[in-house]
């Protein structure tokens, strides 16, 4: 799968807390990370991927260009609410895992997106810091590229026309059966040489005096 990561600017996390961030002894439980695209481009998002660092819940809001409204002004919509990244905010499970949020998980279609806002929540006071790392936005592959069709394409029998079989088996069923067997033999052929031989010596020699520190 080609990596369609869009270049974007990820701003540093901004804490949301009541009171003065500098003098308050308790740590913030909410951070907001804004992601913007250069030159104000509008993106059709396929996937948002990131590495978690102790964030418990994630909310995603998108700023979409509204084609309907006059002047094309943008509006904010919530596309993901309270998505859990850690099974329990107090324990380590999921705390350093890699995640992807896909289009089909979102409440609204992420088309014509000009800005993405990630709202991170960590209600547990057990952790000193929490954030998301390595945030990438992947866009959908463009499917409107037109290429010239070769001439012989038009000479093929259309699928809906049933050919005259004359007692022979249906080519579709034969083709699918043979294709499966062929795929299996291909796999067997390519994997044959990967079987380990099992010898640990090099040319019958295995003299070791020192272990390496990597």
């Amino acid at each position: 799968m080609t990596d369609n990561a869009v270049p974007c600017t990820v701003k540093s996390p901004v804490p949301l807390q009541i009171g003065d961030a500098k003098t308050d002894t308790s740590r913030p439980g909410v951070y907001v990370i804004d992601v913007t695209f250069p030159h104000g481009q509008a993106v059709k998002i396929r996937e948002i991927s990131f590495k978690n660092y102790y964030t418990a819940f994630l909310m995603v809001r998108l700023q979409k260009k509204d084609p309907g409204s006059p002047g094309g002004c943008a509006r904010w919509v919530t596309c993901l609410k309270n998505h859990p990244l850690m099974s329990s905010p107090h324990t380590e499970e999921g705390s350093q895992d890699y995640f992807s949020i896909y289009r089909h998980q979102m409440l609204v279609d992420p088309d014509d997106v000009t800005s993405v806002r990630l709202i991170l929540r960590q209600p547990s006071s057990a952790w000193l810091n929490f954030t998301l790392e390595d945030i990438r936005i992947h866009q959908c592959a463009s499917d409107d590229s037109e290429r010239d069709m070769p001439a012989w394409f038009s000479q093929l029998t259309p699928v809906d026309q049933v050919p005259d079989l004359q007692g022979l088996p249906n080519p579709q069923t034969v083709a699918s059966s043979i294709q499966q067997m062929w795929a299996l033999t291909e796999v067997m052929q390519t994997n044959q040489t990967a079987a380990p031989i099992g010898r640990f010596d090099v040319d019958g020699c295995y003299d070791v005096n020192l272990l390496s520190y990597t």
Partner: protein
Amino acid sequence: MAALWDLFPPTRAWGSVQRCHTTGFGHFHRSKSECLHRPEIRIECLKEDVRNFLKKTGWERKLQNAVYRELHVLPQPSHAAAPPEHTKEPLAYMRKAQACWEKRILKSLNSMSTELGVPLARKRPVREQKELLQKWSEMGTNEPDLSHFRPVYAPKDFLEVLTSLRNPNLDSSDEASCRSHLGLIQVSLNVKDIPEMREFFCELSLEKGQLGIDDHTSFPPDLFESDHICLGKKVLSEQDSAAAQQYSRQGCPTGLRAHLWALILNCSNDPEDVMHYEQLKAGVINHDLLVDNLIYKDVKLTASNDDYYFVFEDYLYQVLLCFSRDTAVLEHFNYSSATPPTCHTKGQSGAEDGTSVYPPNGVVPFHGFSMYVAPLCFLYKEPSQLYSVFREMYVRYFFRLHSISSSPSGIVSLCLQFEKLLQVYLPQLFYHLRETGAQPLRIAFKWMVRAFSGYLATDQLLLLWDRILGYDSMEILAVLAAAVFAFRAENLMEVTSLAAAEAVLADLSTLKVMPLLQIFLFATVI
């Protein structure tokens, strides 16, 4: 094969089938291609005919078992962006701790080799090879001078490393809070509490029959035991790994246990396995490793001194020395947080310079390692079958007991689970022991690291290991450790030192495992 797709998610099942092809499913390919040449196979229904042929000859079941085995060891499919080390262990600070620990072991091995003037590995002279071959089945009669060798580490050294494990992102300020760790383990892993355990171990509940309880002589056998044995024979005749695993949750009858475990672990004693074992034996004869001395020392110190296991001393050498030469074990490092030690080797010509793994299987034995093999000697008489069952048990379960990882069956999780169970359900006992300087984990750790081998009576130990296989998890070790403390709570409340607590818990050989587990899980008032 379509049935397999129904059982398992497609990507994992396909990965498992691909792996089966590479792990020498030679005669499966041959019989498949022979089948295709038969005249009754028609092209239109090729798929159906091949499928029926596989079912009739029992190959479908074998393939199912093989895929089931792969699914047990394959890690969960990971994110595309996750590097391989993340699959081995997702938490960065644990990877770092494991790497430090491994470096300590390497240094210890290197200095042992230098101080004693013994090379880490060398080719045996021909005369020595002949002597060893002659004495192969009675290596216990050798009396090598092992006085200068010391084990690379003992469980208590490993416990010190685990107690010093710290997450740099954890708030460990001095204020006591509900999340303070009063025990030795200071990391916040996800562990099950008793309500979750009751659900997970539901087959052990009070209303279900158990071997280890309901096969006692005071109960009539037709209450549970004879039906269970009949069911066991049926499971064996079907040769279904998944069914055998489910069956094992209520215990395996003594007469069927060896076959059932081999079925669950998908270990056969085919000519290929015997040949593989002979190849390893040749590796032992040809090359002498320093770790061999460590194995000898360990067997002499532990199994040879044990009333139950001293008779199997020769078998232990035959298995463990071959185990050290088995490069197939290296595969488990793909899903273990550990990394094998490496060394530089030169070919005979002296020109090639390659990197090899030392020992060839990448596993450095520690004090008590031979106790993982000893109980299996009661089940398997053929060294090659004993070997393949032990190897499979190691690469599925035992490796997690001596490496630092966040896995739910890993030793760190087991220790934390044990401490949490005690704190929540026996708070007075926990507090008392902590105040008298007898942190409970200091006593229970050695039990869990060895999976209770050498501490329980053998029949009880095998009943415990039935459940490890049945539930594919080692959490039962933590539950049993807590149950033992609960059982001896009255005596423990009167101790005033760690030594006295150790004395109370020194002898577990009279304990009955299944009643203890059942009472702790299902009859304790929450």
